[in-house]
């Protein structure tokens, strides 16, 4: 079953084509890596899929709903974690959990037990009453992911979820992602750490708004006769004409 379908999805801002007719499909339970240099159009593409931004042309389906005409339904079936692990810094850990649980319509009587369970899982039980601004970045990241998946969405979108975090914490974070995928959740993740691409079932590489390559990491390495994903990426990224920001 396809959880995400994009057909010639395009986004233009005036004369600038941020996303240029991309097409792909993501299977349920798959970890789909969405790679590209800064400014390649990753975030724009992801925003369209999350119903945050209207496509200029083409169409997309997420969890069986049209991203253009049924954006609200799409939003109810996905989880979203933004680049900045955007939590409310002046709210306590458990208050953040409860707020987002409330936003996503989790039943009131289920929130409390599930909060305890979630916090225990990420070893934050002792910090439940701490303000988010006082916990380290790595914990914020774990918390942010737990909140994005708290309501058991079909699909979770992660926008550069490991930015600024040390390698060990990144490794542990990918364990969480893999566990979620094993539980049947589809994971759509953007990153610019090429070592992380190896953890994905399939990766796509965007250059200047277009998808230039899409396959399993192993096949891509073979196709580009490269030692690792980093080398694959560099071969493709060299073609980029857009200025990185």
């Amino acid at each position, binding site marked *: 079953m396809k959880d995400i379908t994009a057909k010639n999805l395009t986004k233009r801002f005036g004369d600038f084509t941020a996303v240029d007719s991309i097409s792909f499909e993501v299977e349920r339970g798959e970890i789909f890596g969405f790679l590209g240099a800064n400014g390649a159009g990753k975030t724009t593409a992801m925003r369209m899929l999350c119903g*945050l931004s209207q496509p200029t042309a083409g169409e997309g389906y997420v969890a069986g709903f049209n991203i253009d005409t049924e954006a609200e339904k799409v*939003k109810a079936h996905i989880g979203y974690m933004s680049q900045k692990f*955007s939590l409310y810094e*002046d*709210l306590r850990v458990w208050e953040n959990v*409860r707020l987002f649980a409330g936003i996503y*319509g989790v*039943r009131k009587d289920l929130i409390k037990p599930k909060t305890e369970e979630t916090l225990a899982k990420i070893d934050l039980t002792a910090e439940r009453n701490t303000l988010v601004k006082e916990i380290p970045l790595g914990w914020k990241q774990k918390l942010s992911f737990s909140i994005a998946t708290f309501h*058991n969405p079909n699909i979770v979108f992660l926008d550069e979820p490991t930015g600024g975090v040390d390698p060990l914490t990144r490794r542990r974070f990918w364990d969480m992602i893999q566990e979620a995928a094993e539980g049947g959740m589809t994971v759509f993740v953007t990153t610019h750490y090429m070592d992380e691409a190896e953890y994905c079932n399939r990766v796509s590489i965007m250059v200047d708004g277009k998808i230039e390559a899409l396959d399993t990491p192993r096949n891509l390495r073979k196709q580009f006769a490269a030692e690792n994903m980093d080398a694959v990426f560099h071969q493709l990224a060299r073609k980029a004409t857009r200025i990185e920001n």
Partner: protein
Amino acid sequence: MNMAKNNFQFSIFNFQFWCFVQKEFYHIFRDRRTVMVMILMPIIQVILFGFAITTEVKNVKIAIYDPSRDVATQHITEKIGAGEFFIIDRYLNSPAEIDRTFREGEVSVIILFSDNFGERLLHTGDAGIQVLLDASEPNQASSAGMYINSIIADYQQELMREASIPFQIRPEIRMLYNPSMKSGYNFVPGVMGMILMLICAMMTSIAIVREKEMGTMEVLLASPVKPIYVVLSKMSPYFVISWFNLITILLLSVYVLGVPVSGNLFWLNVLSLLFIVVALGLGLFISTLVDTQVAAMLASGMGMIMPVMLLSGFVFPTESMPPVLQWLSTVVPARWYIAAVRRIMIEGAPVQAVWKEFAILAGMAAVIITVSLKNFKSRLE
């Protein structure tokens, strides 16, 4: 997912909304500085305007036109000049000099005795005094008017005690250059308008823009929550706080400054709530236009607070503005609010007397909120 999907349609609304409202209260009350500002600002403003800016009347220069120069007029003139309030600056030779005298700017009060003042007073027991006040400084003018009135009343009492005939001196007090200035308590309605505008418009716009800046707005927009809930929950704490401020201002004005609420308290509140809604709408509107907190602060400072100060009739009476500014002032909501508060609170006018202001504010509220909600939605794209 099942647990989420089943109940999504109705029962969630309340809980979801209240989660948000609670969050907004946390944001505000965990930021001590904001709380201090919001609670103390109205108090400080009222006290500042009440005690510092309504200057005590002292050494006000007076010109006198006294055609008869008799005992009675001399006596009154002496009494007026006796205290530290007034200085008798000059005598006028004819009423024709009034305008020029005021324009010179030194003299702010002119007293005109009627012809044969003393004689009339003795024979008919009825004489007139005209007191002209330069009301371009409204607070000073009205205090001066009150003092002169009481000095004349004093003199009348003295006469009554000496003779048994009823004497009557009719002082006729006229405010020049600002004729509709009917009260010295101008600043209380003005402060109300300004505080409510400041708290509602500025704070709301900053609070919404902060979420954009922090990136949390993106997360909210990616969630199934309806934008209207985000907006309403943002507004609700400021609604409560500004109402609290309103009550603080009213209590201060009644018990500290002695400015009574002469009209209907209920309608005064309804009117204020309507104005609060307008101000919240403006805050929302600003938040849809700008992307940074600094810009929001500037926009609400320049776009909201300045017009309240300058164009609403708070500091400068609208009647004495040039036509262009008068016309411009009609789009400033505070102008209508302050005018209506003056009438209800200070003059004790019935609510029917301010139906026009009510209607205008309601219209503004409808337009602003519709436009900004539309704008807010398009931000999703």
